[in-house]
């Protein structure tokens, strides 16, 4: 191979001069996300049964179960529990979504989670009616 030849990078330089910028004009144009993108967590309160599997598997301690009183099933009194999500510590792994037997959880495509108020990231959909 010929060594110390000048100008191996020059054709590439001209190619990039004629091309459009590689960066995306993100805040002005919507960004294209892949089908499987893992974004902000969302819950369907109607489907949740409070089985706590999501709280057990979560590696980032996002999910805590909140007691909402009791309900009667036949003769027995059962505790009603619903999850409270602190999304500020979520690592978007999707383990809770995989383990939810009732398909109540899903990872949406929303990734703009920056907020000046930390309480905005507290998801209490399943608790408040």
């Amino acid at each position, binding site marked *: *191979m*010929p*060594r*110390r*030849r*000048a100008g*191996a*990078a020059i054709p*590439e*330089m001209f190619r*990039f001069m004629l091309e459009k910028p*590689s960066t995306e004009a993100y805040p002005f144009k919507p960004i294209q996300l*892949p*089908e*499987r*993108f*893992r974004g902000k967590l969302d819950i369907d309160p109607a489907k949740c049964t409070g089985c706590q599997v999501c709280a*057990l*598997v*979560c*590696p*980032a301690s996002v999910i805590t179960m909140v007691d909402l009183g009791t309900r009667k099933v036949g003769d027995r009194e059962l505790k009603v529990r619903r999850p409270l999500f602190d999304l500020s510590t979520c*690592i*978007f*792994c*999707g*383990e809770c979504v*995989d383990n939810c037997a009732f398909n109540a959880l899903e*990872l949406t495509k929303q990734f703009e989670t920056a907020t000046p108020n930390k309480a905005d990231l507290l998801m209490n959909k399943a608790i408040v009616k």
Partner: protein
Amino acid sequence: MSTPPNQQRREESAGLMEYSTESLVPFGPIHPALKEPEYFKLVLEGERIVNVIPRIGYVHRGLEKAAESRPWVQNMYMFERTCGICSFVHSLCYSQAVEELTMYQVPRRAKYIRTIIAEMERIHSHLLWVGLMGHWAGFDTLFMWVWNDREVVLDLVEAISGNRVHKSMNAFCGVRKDMPENMEDRIIERMKFLTDRARYYREVIDTEETMLKRTENIGRVSADTVEKLCAVGPMARYVGFKRDVRLNDPYAAYDEVPLDVITTTQGDVHALLRLRLDELVASANMVAYAVKNLPDGPIRVKIPPIIPAGEHSSHCEAPRGEIFYFVKSSGGRTPDRVKSRQPTMANLPTALELLKGQTLADIPIVLTAIDPCFGCMDRMSFYDTETNKRWTWSGEELRQYGINYYFPERAKKKSGIKKAIGPPTNQYPREEF
């Protein structure tokens, strides 16, 4: 006639040199040349480096201790976050060690998907590294080009797993997501594109004066030294050793996918550049082969959350070299002990050897050449070199040591607190210049 001023100055400096030939220069822990904090004490003779004394442990995060209090599945995501570049291979290595303790087998399709992701990760890690080498060689154009091409493979990873960096693809005895449909052609086309680009970059680094001047004959080390200091990965292959876990102890689907282990005998930083670009081409070919010959079948076997008692180790070939995980279980929901060893820990002695004899200006490029990840490697153990004694500290003793170190007055007042066991009990002397 008086002596000319130049000669006089030379004589003066010659006299001075008699009693101060060496100077000590601190390098780091916060330095523009280091992306992660690490401290090197440099002994210089003029501009040449005579000796380097490292001090590690600035980013110790206590991962191994934290693993002991978390369930098995949660640890996978924690160990994936050991490194921000080679994240998948950490979870792969950990899950392989755990899988050995169970009686379940990994499906063949899952093994292939693991291979595809691991090789894509190697491509993206090597491209990142080539860009950084261009940056430190003063060839920022190469940095921009290479990182632009890196987006191609990151987009593929994102389409398969859902995230660019932390793939979260591994599960015990399988993978969590199947390969998307109708992606075969796209992956093969992109791999061909990356192969062409890698060949072009190979030509650029072989002919461009900027790269050659900064990399040729820099960081030379003999094969004997590498053998003695137990370097791993590309650092062993660039002096001619054919050491690769994928070849020597195949895991995932590496026993079925044709593997091309690249070695050079040139033994300098330029050889590392060529080696990693050639490895990139080999990885792209492996991805294309694995995608074409992806077997059918299930991708995962669900296993119970309790892992049977026993202990096992596992090792994998990360982009930087061999990583090692040891797992011990007593049959509970959490591991008894997890030990992880990262390639930078094994390559650091060789890096210090590479630095000796180089000029001060070559430090960034030589340190980058080993592809360091100081954040990954920090672990903690106590070892007394004089008495050859090893010991461990409990959490309370560590806390006491911290109080002793930072607030000696407070520690004296509270004499009731249990003192730390093992030598040395009181503070280490602070290092001073």
